[in-house]
């Protein structure tokens, strides 16, 4: 029973509330606001501040955030090690059909290996999706002042209306990419 729970994907009504608990957890263990994208800025400040004033601050004061993201990476590794999923990823039949049209048929991994892997890195569409997509994530989250965790979860939880605006824009950008631009990129 328990092993079955750990080897199956968790439903939203278990995972969502537990993710929500991260907000009070971080506040109560050290007065920290749940947010992840800031870690990218701290990495810049620590490794390559250059002559950019935006990165000239004492990043060591925010080192908790780097410990947190290292933990996330380790958590991903532990999940794989301790309770790997047995089955392939179940996906919506319509999505499967659409993706098959672009030659994406491998559902063995959470990250589609036909798009995101070292072998596919030098195909045009993977290069755009990995390098271009990553760049947009890093640029956009900092410009917006937060990502899904900082704005959508922490910000809205604290009733901040700018965070509601940001979250609506995240979704709008995502819908536009998925329905307008992505079909062109996938067809490359």
């Amino acid at each position, binding site marked *: 029973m328990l092993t079955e729970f750990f080897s199956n994907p968790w439903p939203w009504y278990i995972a969502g509330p537990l993710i*929500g608990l991260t907000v009070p957890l971080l506040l109560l263990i050290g007065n920290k606001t749940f947010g992840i994208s800031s870690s990218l800025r701290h990495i810049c400040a620590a490794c390559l501040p250059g002559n950019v004033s935006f990165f000239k601050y004492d990043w060591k004061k925010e080192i908790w955030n780097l410990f947190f993201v290292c933990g996330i990476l380790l958590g991903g590794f532990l999940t794989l090690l301790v309770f790997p999923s047995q089955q392939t990823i179940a996906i919506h039949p319509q999505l499967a059909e659409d993706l098959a049209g672009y030659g994406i048929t491998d559902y063995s991994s959470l990250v589609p290996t036909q798009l995101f892997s070292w072998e596919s890195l030098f195909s045009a569409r993977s290069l755009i999706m990995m390098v271009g997509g990553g760049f947009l*994530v890093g640029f956009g989250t900092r410009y917006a002042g937060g990502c899904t965790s900082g704005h959508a979860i922490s910000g809205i939880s604290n009733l901040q209306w700018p965070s509601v605006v940001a979250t609506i824009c995240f979704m709008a950008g995502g819908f*536009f990419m998925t329905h307008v631009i992505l079909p062109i990129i996938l067809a490359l």
Partner: protein
Amino acid sequence: MNPINTQQETQQEYDLRATDTLCLNESRLIHPWWYNLKYALAGIFFGILFVKAEIVSWFRIQEMFRLQSFHMYGVIGSAIAVGMLSIFLIKRFNIKTIHGEKVEFHPKQFNKGQIIGGLIFGLGWALTGACPGPLFAQIGTGATAVIITLLSAIAGTWVYGYFRDRLPH
């Protein structure tokens, strides 16, 4: 250096660090470095959740933007509900941190970045199928090629920092 200057510098450093972040809560307590391991533990808990709930899956994000699954809406919606209730309770009962400090909240100022940056991040989110958190978790699950995506995200943040003063806010 006289103390007033130092205080000013500390404030300047704090203001700069607080730019374009949600808010910073600084502990006045000085702790040894290994106290930070509690955040690593919180991260591990969170990373496991991310993977087991398949939030790190590119397919789940696609289903969300194609309105083919309620999963992601359920996750984000219920996370907000629990977060909101927790913050309400912390404020209502003035719950202190485990070190006895008052929990601080700062209002977020609106600027155009939340719209323009938000749209840009949205485009990237649908491409990579990952916000910054899942990028780290994906690498942990063995999708090592995502390191390229993460490096590119760091580069994106750096370029934003470089051009920040010339962008509309």
